Structure formats: C-alpha cells, structure tokens
C-alpha cells in the first residue's frame, strides 16, 4: 500500500521533459500564424482565403499547447520507460552518414554504412563483418531496383566499377 502511495505522489510531480512540449507547440503555432498573416496581407479581398485554415490550425495548436502545459504540470503524462540514448545516437549517425555520403559515394556504400551502424546500435559490434555485408546487400538492391526497376538511385564508384554506363 505505502509503495502505491509514494508512486502516486511521484507521478503527480510536474513532468519536466513533457513540459518542454508545450512551448514547442506554441512556437509552431506562432510560426504558422506569422506565415499565414503574411499571406492574408497579399490577398485581403476575400474573408475566406489561403490563410483561413492555417489560422485555425495555429489557434488549435496554441490551445493544445496550453492544455499540454497543464497536463505536464499535473504530471498526467504516462510514465516513461527509461530510454537508452547510445543506440539511438548510432542509428541517427548512420542515417546522417547515408545522407551525406549518398551523392559522393553512391547508394551502395552510403546505405551499407547505414546498415552497419544500425546493426551496431542493436548490439552487433563487428563492423568488419556488418559493413561489407551491408554494402553487398545494398549493391544487390541497387541492381534490382536501380537497374531492373529503373528507380533513380545515385551511383558512385562501386556502381561505376560494375556498370560503366551508369
């Protein structure tokens, strides 16, 4: 019983992380409102125009921001499992790496890196295995989707090595 009570008391504390959401929503609402006001200045001859819906959405978001602040203050958000950030950072690094390498290195190498870093994030630490596996797999995907199905997947040195024309 006493454990229950203390847990309840803990839950009722303001949820700081959730409290950040409210200003974020408010900021979004402000940006939309500002952008829409710029529009209505351009065409103020009609009451219903391109700015109507953005204004409604901005108002809605602002209201939801207030409501969020209220719930976060009362600690009404569901309890969160503790999260591990390290794996998330690895996978995000993989996605960012793919984004930056896509043009210079081509689809296979960039996506192979994403593959290897994702596996790394999930606990497969042997990059000397997962990186080649990822690159070969991505290259096969590139052949099937890029060559056979004519999807425009960027080619890099590896692709040029096997297909001169592309």
């Amino acid at each position, binding site marked *: 019983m006493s454990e229950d009570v203390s847990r309840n008391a803990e839950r009722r504390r303001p949820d700081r992380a959730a409290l950040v959401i409210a200003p974020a929503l408010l900021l979004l609402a402000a940006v939309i409102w500002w952008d829409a006001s710029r529009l209505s200045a351009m*065409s103020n001859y009609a009451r219903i125009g391109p700015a109507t*819906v953005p204004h409604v959405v901005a108002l809605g978001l602002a209201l939801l921001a207030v*409501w969020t602040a209220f719930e976060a203050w009362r600690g009404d*958000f569901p309890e969160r499992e503790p999260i*591990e950030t390290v794996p998330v950072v690895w996978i*995000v690094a993989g*996605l960012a790496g793919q984004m930056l390498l896509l043009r210079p290195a081509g689809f296979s190498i960039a996506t192979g890196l994403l593959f290897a870093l994702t*596996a790394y994030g999930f606990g497969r630490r042997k990059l000397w295995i997962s990186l080649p596996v990822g690159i070969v797999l991505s290259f096969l995907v590139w052949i099937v989707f890029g060559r056979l199905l004519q999807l425009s997947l960027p080619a890099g040195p590896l692709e040029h090595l096997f297909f001169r024309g592309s």
Partner: protein
Amino acid sequence: MGTFEFLLQGLVVAAQPINLFYALIGVTLGTAVGVLPGIGPALTVALLLPVTYKLDPAGSLIMFAGIYYGGMYGGSTTSILLNTPGESASVVTALEGNKMARAGRGGPALATAAIGSFVAGLIATLGLAFIAPFVVKFALSFGPREYFALMVLAFVTVSAAFGDSTLRGLTALFVGLALAVIGIDQQTGQARLSFGIPDLLDGIEVTTLAVAMFAIGETLFVASQGSRVPEKVEAVKGSVWMSAADWARSWKPWLRGTAIGFPIGAMPAGGADIASFLSYSAEKQFSKHADEFGKGAIEGVAGPEAANNASAAGTLVPLLSLGLPTTATAAIMLAGFQQYGLQPGPLLFATNPQLVWGLIASLLIANFMLLVLNLPLIGLWVKLLTIPKPWLYAGILLFATLGTIGANPSVFELGILLAFGLLGFAMRVFGYPIAPVVVGLILGPMAEQQLRRALAISQGDVTALFMSPIAAVLFVLAAVAVVVPLVLRARGRGEVLSQFAANED
C-alpha cells in the same frame, strides 16, 4: 447492372494472369510484413509507392490491397508464437494465442486465426461489394459541406475518440494538419510555410512522412528500449489441424467477429485494433468457457482475428466510395490512387468500374491465396521470426531509405526523413499516437478544399455549414466523439478507452 454483374466483370479483370501475379506478390509481402514485428502494412505500401510508380494502376492497387489483407493474416502468427504483436491489430490475439502456444496448442491457434480471417475476409469483402454501391448513391447527394463534416468526423475518430488521451491524439492530428499546410496553396498558388525553400513548395510527401514515422521512429524506439525483454519464439508443436471441439468453439466467434469488425471499419469509427478489442470483450462475455480466458481460450483468438480482417475490408468501403481514409494504411492507399491521378469516391465507380470492381474481386481471390499461404506454409513464416533483431532493423532501414531515395534522390528529402524519424521517436517516447499525423497530412488538404468550397458557396457564412441535416448530424457525432471520451476519462473510466488505443495500422 446489379452488383452481381459488376462483381463478375471484376472477377474477369482480377483473373487475368498479370493481376493474379500482383495479388500473389501483395499477399506474400503482406504476410511477411505482418509476421515481422516493427513493420506493418502502412509502411510497406508507403515503401512500394515509388517502386510501383511506373506499373499499371489496377495491378498496383490490387497488390496494395493484398498487402493490407496479408498484414492482417500475418500479424496473428507473430502474436501467437512470439507474444509480440506483428502489427497493432493483433495485440489482443497475443493475450490468448500466446498462452495456447505455450500450452502446446499453437497449431490450432494458428489455424483458427487463419480460417477465421478467411471466413471474415470473404464475408466482409462481399459486404463491401454490396454496400459500396449504396454508399455511392447516397454520397452523390453530398456537397462540399457534407464532405467537410465527414472529414471532421474522421479526424476526430482517428485522433480523439479512442486511445488513452484526447490531448495527445488531437495534438498528433494538429501536427499532421500543420504539415499539410506546407507547400503551394491549391487555389491561389501562394506558397505557405515554405520559407523560400524550393524543396518545400510541393509540400511534405505522405510516403516520406509515413516511412519516417513508422520505420525510422519505430526502429529508434525499439533500439532505445534496449534488450530488456527476452523474446522467445514458441515452436509449433503438434498438429495445425483443429479438433472437432475447436471447430465447435470457433465458428460462432468467427461470425461474431465479422459482425463486429465490418461495421467498425466501414463507419469512420477507427481501425482494426478497436474492432479486435471489442470482439475480444464480446467473446469473453458470451463464452461458456469464460474461466479459460487469460489461460488460452480459443474463442479469444478466433473472434479478434476475424474482427480485424473484417474491419480491414470495412475500411475499404469509405475509402473507395467516399475517398475517405480512416486508418493509416487506407490513407497511404489513397496516396497510391492519387499517384495515378485517380480520386476514389462516387465518381470512380462511374468512370473506372473495371478498376474498382477488379480490385474488390481480387480481394476475394487474395483471401483464398492467403488461406493457402498461412496454413500449409506456416513453417516458412515462423522462420522469419528467427531473424536476429540487428539484421532485421538494419534491413528495415535499408528498404525504408530505398523508397525515399527512389522517389526523390536528394539530400534534402533524406534530411526530412531523418527529422520526421526523430519526431516519430519522440512521439512514441511520450505516448503520442502516430496514425493521426499521417491521416491529418493526407486528409488535411482535402478537408480544406471542401471547407473553402462550402464557404465560397455560402459567401463566407460559417453557419451555413451546419444548415444541411446530414452535415449537422455528422458534426454532432464528431462533437460527441470528442466530449464523451473526455468525460469518461475525467471520471476515471479511461482504462476501457486506452485499451482501444488506435495505433499505426
């Protein structure tokens, strides 16, 4: 011509070898993604949209519908054998199904799920064929304000009516609506929320958003949970055939599940997950073996599995006849139609009957294929479950980015993908639902268009929106769907609703 003639014509279209081939690919892929945890039919259709861009529209749509049906079948396998639902509509199946598998009755559990899905899919697809023409006739009298009211109702039911928080549902919806504003305004050609960036003028791609939110957000979330939960695949022991007693206990839940699932899917009242929860509680009430519930009651597998398939078919009623998506998968299928310049709705039945009826008829065929794929070949799918997590999620991200790169090979698009992936991750961490964002993005511009048309007709008079009886009724229903759950939750009765949490598919 009556429905029968149309359906026969549709069967002729669907029986063309190339369309049978597309259906087979669809159901196979659908079963595979249904089985794999972490990816569902919504994501798969989103990934395939760019790939199918150059294919024949009828064939691609048949494939997408096959994926939707297949996902509903495949999800049950994962629930039963792994106790992790393969997709959100199979959450309840895990309750009883996994208990049965642990007790060595995995075979009959898989069988009752597959046969129940088949029975429900067949009845509900026929229901779709017979009800859709009536809805079409009714919808022909709809003007802009009725459509707008209908969309408002869909917004509310997708976001606020179910799930564990009205606030978080509505917030997710409004984030989707805000994203929908980005790009060139359809009527005046002015750029909105694009901040002078040319890549934003076309707006946010539905497929990019869906892939980011579902694939990347989910992968990051699973990774952040670490390896706390040990997962164990239950081997299928014994026969997959059901005993006479199993049949006797299953057939009524199948039919009840169908009767619950189809209307829920057909009305804009939420997705398959809601139907399966309702069916589960109904079976618990009706069962003569109520004491077995929680320990592996076959009714608790048969009913919900029938209900989720029936509701998938039901979802196609508003999608095809009104152009109104009520689940994330339906929303992305709508994007698929639009990719070919087709707008689902009453007119599509008149202008393109071969396509519509071919699609409906192909679902009947897909159902037979799925029964074969899921009973005799079950061992094949179980193997999929043994793929180690690192390879599985690495592969998911490979294909997720492939779809985006294929649609638009630009660094900017990948940046958007990453940004929304992080948004999807944060939303999962804080318990926000994902589906309302996707539905808001695709339905937002359509709702805006109808609203502005309606207000143009009434010369800016907002009250005119409520002056048509149909629109007024729809608005009242929408208001009820927001207020009643709020009151229930405030009085501490919210547990019932949070069980109905509408999730991704």
